[in-house]
């Protein structure tokens, strides 16, 4: 890998320089927006400096680090441990399951989305998922995103009407054109509700709505909102016993009787009220009328990518600093170790709470805050590994043949000291998911409309009588953390072979 890099070094660096410059340049206005807006030339200069710094200092380290990770992975000892890991079925299957779920959740837009994938209207195909199409294009009212679920129903009704007109022989001009165009249709996603979309307009009664398969609860709510067509006269006791075969209803108060009748499905809804389908909202809706299931799935994606990113950056910084401490030692080691000690004495949760409460961060800011207060853990392990490996013979040999410090660090020592990284990573992911959920729960996490488990749990604490708001995030979190800790346990067993020999 490093050879390929060396071969095309100039080409790669030019390309990356351009990309980095473009990236920094596009990020610049955000940075400038707070105070004075810098002119475009200063922006260009600053972004150029940043990009060059990135290329000259960061990129070689990243490439070398990636290369030593490759060496670590291709080493025979890793392969042996990996085959050991594969024999631990529980962890191995959990590993693939969690990766599979994460990959699927990355494509959640194609599966769980209020936006339709494709629409055919007037013979034209619209790829609505990729390109915004205003409602007016489809002959609906408004300029925003159309409600595709409603549009599907409307198209169906229109198609039926057209078919009837065709049968009756009263064909209009439009109908003749439709013969050329073909029928309109909407290709909805598998679960057509977005996580951010409030469904208050579509659903009767107040949110949070129960899961739709709990029909009894819905009927009860309908009674409370008087959405049923009540019969003009109460049934007489004889009618109740004869028709409904429910003698225990005979002595009920009228309100109770209507409630019982509604729950048994004996009352008709008022014509303007639409009964939701059986599995329309499989986990109900939250207190702003947004679908819980879709928020759960998007929350899974955000939690896991957040945890993975925080773990990755923490380890990047932790490994770099730990390696420098272990390899160079001396005064730098002593001073830096004191600094790490000071830094890790911060009360983690409260400090992060303070920062998040005051700054009101977005996703990347929150990643940054957590990384700033969490990178220390890995330095200890890597430093210890480096101290141990430094005195080995192969390092002396490498130094004797004239390897540079960089070559010794990246090609010799680092590949041999990455075991703690692998065996601690799953537990770090668990801890980071927990941290994000806690912060969201307290209201210091991701900003408001972002789908997140912690925010849902916070809603659940405010609505303790609505179990679906508590059970769904708790179960989702439990299953995710369980899977990840299964993986972690198996990896630890495969990579940290502590033989507990019982002697007796």
């Amino acid at each position, binding site marked *: 890998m490093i050879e390929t890099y060396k071969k095309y070094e100039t080409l790669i660096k030019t390309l990356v320089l351009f990309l980095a410059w473009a990236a920094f340049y596009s990020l610049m206005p955000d940075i400038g927006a707070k105070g004075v807006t810098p002119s475009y030339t200063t922006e260009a200069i600053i972004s150029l400096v940043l990009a060059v710094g990135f290329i000259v200092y960061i990129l070689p380290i990243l490439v070398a680090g990636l290369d030593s990770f490759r060496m670590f992975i291709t080493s025979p000892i890793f392969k042996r441990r990996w085959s050991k890991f594969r024999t631990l079925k529980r962890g191995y299957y959990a590993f693939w399951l969690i990766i599979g779920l994460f990959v699927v959740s990355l494509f959640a837009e194609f599966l769980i989305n209020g936006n339709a994938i494709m629409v055919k209207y007037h013979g034209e195909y619209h790829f609505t998922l990729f390109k915004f199409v205003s409602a007016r294009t489809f002959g609906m009212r408004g300029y925003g995103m159309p409600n595709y679920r409603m549009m599907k129903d409307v198209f169906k009704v229109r198609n039926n009407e057209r078919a009837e007109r065709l049968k009756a022989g009263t064909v209009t001009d439009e109908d003749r054109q439709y013969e050329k165009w073909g029928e309109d249709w909407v290709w909805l996603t598998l679960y057509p509700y977005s996580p951010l979309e409030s469904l208050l307009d579509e659903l009767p009664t107040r949110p949070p709505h129960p899961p739709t398969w709990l029909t009894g609860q819905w009927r009860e709510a309908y009674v409370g909102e008087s959405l049923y067509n009540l019969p003009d006269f109460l049934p007489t006791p004889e009618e109740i016993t004869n028709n409904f075969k429910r003698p225990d209803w005979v002595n009920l108060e009228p309100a109770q009787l209507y409630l019982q009748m509604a729950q048994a499905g004996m009352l008709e809804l008022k014509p303007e009220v639409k009964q939701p389908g059986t599995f329309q909202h499989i986990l109900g809706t939250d207190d702003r009328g947004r679908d819980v299931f879709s928020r759960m799935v998007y929350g899974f994606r955000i939690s896991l990518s957040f945890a993975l990113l925080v773990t990755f950056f923490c380890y990047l910084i932790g490994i770099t600093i730990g390696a420098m401490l272990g390899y160079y030692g001396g005064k730098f080691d002593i001073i830096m170790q*004191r600094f790490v000690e000071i830094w890790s004495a911060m009360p983690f949760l409260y400090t992060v709470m303070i920062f998040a409460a005051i700054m009101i961060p977005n996703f990347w800011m929150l990643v940054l805050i957590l990384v700033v207060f969490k990178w220390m853990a890995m330095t200890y392990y890597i430093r210890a590994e480096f101290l141990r490996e430094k005195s080995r013979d192969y390092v002396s040999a490498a130094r004797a043949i004239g390897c540079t410090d960089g070559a010794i660090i990246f090609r010799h020592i680092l590949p041999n000291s990455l075991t703690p990284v692998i065996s601690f990573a799953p537990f770090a992911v668990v801890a980071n998911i927990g941290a994000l959920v806690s912060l969201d729960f307290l209201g210091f996490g991701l900003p408001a409309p972002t789908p997140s488990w912690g925010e849902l749990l916070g809603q659940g604490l405010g609505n303790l009588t609505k179990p679906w708001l*508590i059970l769904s995030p708790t179960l989702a979190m439990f299953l995710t953390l369980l899977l990840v800790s299964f993986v972690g346990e198996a990896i630890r067993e495969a990579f940290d072979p502590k033989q507990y020999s019982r002697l*007796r």
Partner: protein
Amino acid sequence: MYSYFIRRFLLMIPTFIGITLLCFIVTRYVPGGPVEQAVLRYQQTMANSGEGGGGSSGSDMQQGQISEEMMNQLKAIYGFDKNPFEAYLRWLWRVLHFDLGTSDTYGRPVWDLIVEKFPISIIFGLSGFVLSYLICIPLGVWKAVKHGSAFDTSSSILVFIAYSIPGWTAGVLLLMLLGGHAFLDIVPSGNKESGFINESSRLALFLQDGAQVADLPEEIRKEFPKLRDNQTINSNHPAFKHVPADKHFKLKTGSHSDLCIVGRVLDTMWHMILPVFCYVLGMFASSTVLMKNSLMENLGQDYVRTAFAKGLSERTVIFKHALRNSLIPIATGLGHMLSLILAGSYLIEKVFNINGFGLLGYESLIARDYPVTLGILVIGSMLKLFGNIVSDFLYCIIDPRIRFS
């Protein structure tokens, strides 16, 4: 070795300064602080009074307008008029004299607030901690002794489950399941003691919260001379301390102050069950696994082999030789106890609405009450620093092989 500890103590000073300076600067430079909030409050009240038609406000107090002079006064009140480093030094100087300032929202000294709330958190945290050690140490030992058996595997499942549910999440779940909201009504759902009214007590009819003392019949009022006419009745009021207790063990329905000592203790314990369970759950997995692994490691050592070779019974070897050594990592955990307890308390106290240290910190952050926030940060970080040193010290005392230098 003593020089090591002296150095550790000296190192506390830069650590403390670093932590507080960082947070102090952040509170200074980020908008939305107490001054802005005060201005907002002022503008809102002015807008409201303007609607009421009261036009008697001063000439410089027009709606939504705040004069330069007033702004400076506000800044002076909240200590924002000096440059941040000078302000920080002043603040530090006061902290060294145990003066953490005055809370903006409560209007009371921060130190008093913290002292008031601290015992509540400590009671919950400490009982959770003790209980978790009482459960985890025997369980860990038993798991290590029976390593690989059915008991070990089945309790490992329990450990996995406990690891995958953060304590406070389980708190929300149990509150919903058992707290009488959605399913069962078994445990009380918040507070430290019952505030409900005992139906059999004589004052029961009048102890409705919100009723006026003047409403009480004359003969009952005579028994409670401390009550004044304009007071609102509150079942927790100290005046009701001596209400005779008819049924001591009516925990769910009785008022806490209606009960005798035993009853009060039981009542408090009953109210503490769920939060303490959450604390235990939070520490359960890590403590059990730590205990098990450390005993397993010791059981593989040569001195255990020697002890077996001497012909000692398994019981003696495990409990007299191996267990002692394997308790070292557990014992050093005592040092981290306080900070661990506080870390858990932010979430658990929020869930159960326990009026303790963590909830105070949370609410001060919501209200942007910076003196309280910084005060809690000071106490929290001091406890953590002391905890680190104490755990090192315990390590030294317990394990004579370890010499810090």
